């Protein structure tokens, strides 16, 4: 009798410990498949976009939401994978220290008392704690994304030298985790023998020119990268050569890894160039009248005179006219390096202008709707020079080259971007790799209505659109999730695998905080 009770008790306990089980639990690893790809050791190469950089800084939660980390989580559902490691910074403040001195700014947060007045501002609630001189010792790291890196930097020995950071010869982000002073990003990545890789590089080869308002030089046909300045455009052929070298190392040969290449978006699609209008100078009637009087002789005598002298065409003369009106929609003035420089001629007869005035008028024009103003110039336009109310930046004092990406600069950027993307596409084909067209993806996000996930639209609208972080260039976690989801789609199409999709809407956007200055 007692035995029966005992058996029933044991049976009952057996049932109690019996958890509910689904017929096809995803934990069993039979729902998904890797196809022809092997995700067991995934390494990601790239720049800030790969590192999970957002809001003008690198911080922990941004890194945790990097597209490589999102991908690695999905890969782990498909097959047994090694832990995906990232060179995490020390805090969520962002910013970098070099031996205690701050060398990179804190992150942006969205601050303000109401939605109408909310603005991005640098977070000051805590001091940055990530010191470049404290090398990470728990490498190697699967996420080899290095903020600021251009294509050729991945091949540059010493790019991760701590000593080189102070002189500007090295990159502080790579210095944190480079395996040695003379290590290269590519060698550190290849040494991990990746079975799968993603490569998203080349953005900065053209983007830093654009974000600097075109303050750099187009290094056409220059293949010696040591001659390049930070804001220069990399020569497209040199880019193709470097890119091919990167991919050969990773995907070439018998044991080459499978992978996905991601191409370069168009810089005009990012909010960084969409927030500040070219025509938002407010003027009352008196000021507009005074300005028009000031530029009256320039418009009616000097410009026609230059046409008569055969220096410029009638069309160029018209484009160089400066006209203001009462209202809020006056275009800014700028010095456009692509215009014929007439300052020398203006100092000669019949114009006989003084050097200062001739310099001011030398390449002067008013902006048009085709010009783009970088987000970082927002606070500059309308300020005065030396507190002189007569010298207003963007009005009586033309904006410098770095404050405007002119339409001809934009054309150059677009043309080079297309050349880069042509090279990336050809290399993807040559090595039979996947290719994600981030260029067209971000155009869709930038189009009317954006991209829609589960009914929720994602657009390039600054602050509220969901895709772009508060620096206007880098993505939010949700934006990176879109990228990760496209990479998943491309992997599944290229390698016949079944990797689960990314739940884009469950990733956040901008962070609210009022601990700002």
């Amino acid at each position: 009798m007692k035995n029966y009770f005992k058996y029933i008790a044991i049976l009952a306990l057996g049932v109690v410990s019996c958890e509910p089980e689904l017929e096809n639990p995803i934990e069993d690893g039979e729902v998904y498949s890797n196809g022809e790809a092997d995700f067991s050791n995934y390494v990601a190469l790239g720049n800030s976009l790969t590192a999970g950089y957002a809001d003008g800084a690198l911080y922990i939660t941004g890194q945790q939401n990097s597209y490589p980390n999102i991908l690695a989580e999905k890969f782990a559902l498909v097959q047994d994978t090694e832990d995906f490691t990232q060179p995490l910074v020390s805090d969520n403040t962002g910013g970098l220290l070099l031996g205690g001195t701050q060398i990179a700014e804190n992150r942006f947060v969205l601050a303000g008392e109401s939605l109408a007045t909310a603005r991005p501002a640098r977070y000051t609630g805590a001091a940055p704690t990530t010191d470049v001189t404290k090398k990470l010792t728990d490498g190697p790291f699967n996420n080899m994304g290095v903020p600021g890196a251009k294509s050729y930097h991945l091949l540059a020995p010493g790019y991760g030298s701590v000593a080189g950071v102070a002189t500007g010869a090295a990159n502080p982000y790579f210095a944190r985790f480079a395996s040695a002073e003379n290590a290269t990003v590519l060698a550190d990545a290849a040494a991990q023998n990746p079975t799968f890789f993603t490569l998203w590089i080349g953005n900065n080869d053209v983007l830093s020119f654009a974000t600097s308002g075109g303050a750099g030089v187009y290094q056409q046909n220059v293949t010696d990268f040591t001659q390049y300045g930070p804001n220069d455009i990399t020569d497209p052929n040199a880019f193709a050569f470097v890119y091919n070298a990167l991919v050969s190392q990773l995907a070439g040969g018998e044991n080459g890894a499978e992978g996905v290449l991601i191409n370069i978006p168009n810089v005009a699609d990012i909010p960084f160039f969409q927030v500040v209008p070219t025509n938002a100078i407010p003027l009352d009637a008196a000021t507009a009248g005074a300005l028009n009087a000031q530029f009256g002789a320039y418009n009616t005598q000097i410009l026609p005179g230059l046409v008569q002298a055969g220096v410029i065409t009638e069309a160029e003369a018209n484009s160089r006219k400066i006209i203001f009106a009462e209202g809020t929609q006056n275009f800014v003035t700028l010095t456009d390096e692509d215009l014929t420089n007439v300052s020398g001629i203006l100092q000669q007869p019949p114009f006989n202008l003084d050097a200062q005035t001739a310099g001011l008028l030398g390449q002067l024009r008013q902006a048009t709707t085709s010009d783009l103003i970088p987000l970082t110039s927002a606070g500059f336009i309308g300020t005065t020079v030396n507190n002189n109310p007569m010298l207003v930046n963007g009005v009586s004092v033309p904006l410098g080259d770095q404050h405007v990406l002119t339409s001809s600069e934009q054309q150059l950027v677009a043309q080079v971007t297309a050349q880069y993307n042509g090279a990336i596409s050809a290399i993807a084909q040559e090595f039979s790799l996947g290719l994600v067209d981030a260029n067209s993806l971000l155009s869709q996000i930038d189009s009317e209505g954006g991209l829609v996930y589960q009914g929720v639209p994602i657009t390039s609208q600054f602050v509220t659109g969901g895709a772009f972080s508060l620096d206007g260039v880098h993505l939010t976690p949700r934006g990176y999730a879109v990228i990760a989801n496209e990479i998943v789609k491309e992997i599944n199409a290229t390698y016949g695998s079944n990797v689960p999709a990314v739940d884009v809407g469950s990733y956040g956007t901008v962070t609210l905080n009022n601990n700002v200055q």
Partner: protein
Amino acid sequence: MIMKKLFLLGLLILAGATTYAGGYRVSLQGQRGLAMGHTGVAVINNAELAFFNPAGLVFLESKINAAVGVSAVFSDVVWQNEEFGQSARTDSPVGTPFYAYFSYKLNDRFSVGLAAYTPYGSSVEWEKDWAGSHLVNDIELSAIYVQALASYKITDNLAVGGGPIYVSGSVNFNRNLNRTLTDLEGNRSNVTIDASGVSAFGWSAGVMWSPIDSLNIGVNYRSEILVEAEDGDADFENIPNSPLTPFEDTRFDATLPLPAELTVGASYQLNEQWLFAFDYNRTFWGVYESLDVDFANPNIPDSTNPREYEDSSIYRFGLQYTANEMFTLRAGYYFDESPVQSGYFAPETPRNDSNNFTGGLSVNVTDKVAIDASFLYSKFKEIDESYDFYQENGQNVPFEGTYKSSAFVPGLGVTIKI
């Protein structure tokens, strides 16, 4: 020999168990009734009648009747979304619904009684910040019913009974504010609403008719009770330091309906050994249209969560075998129709239709005291379902996936007849 049969019966029922005692109606109001598929509206057995049908109390032979018991609810749910590779399972604390019934026969025609029981409750705990955390992280609902009873025999074979019910309810519910809001460190913003000692009143009444000695027919109705939490605590955590979000600790009002239930049933005593029972329950869940939380702070948007439950039926079958003076064996089955409609499948009460198997026995320790043991398991089918009425920026964002529930509920009680 009999024990061996029981053992085998137990084995059969236990085999392949996947069960759940779900929703927030918890049918565990007596080990004897539960062992017979939770039938009892027409079974004259012990003081459990105080719950099943108070009219029957006067038919109990002894002058003093008491029954107390407690169950241990081991119930869990697993969920996954194959599209996104998300999964989660609950780690719910063990629920312990109880009952205590007492009746006293004043004279041959009139009995009075007292009852305390817990017919509604829920305790579901998902992994913190799981994929459905914007709907629920964890919930703990309980309602203790205390009831005074009278049972009056109109004729020798017809009795009525009933009495007023006092309810003391409590709720503790935590969910994340939406799918993404965090503080600067990435901690998810969430709210806990907590209210306890919420009082409410209701009643129940029944009729018991015994047309012939071997047949009993019973009807019982328990009224709807609205538990209205007023001025409960709403505790907001991990809110970003910004006036751009209106969230801060405040008070809340909310109403949770405990629906009315009508039961009709019959029992038939075949011979000295065998008793058969059948109950039909109709639970008037239609009253549960929406779970609305009204925050006192006018800047905090009220939370509206459509539920749109529908009235549902339960069909119960039980049998009892009196083996000898010492042992009585019981078994039962019931089919429990879910009140939850497709598209309203919220993970705080993930409940679909279930097949339920019960068994148990009583051991008469003395003439006056018996030990009652029972178990229940509820077999749920795996189901693909969604909750479609969560909104972000005015847009419905469905939360969907595959659910499977399981539960096992052993229970123990004591019956006293003096």
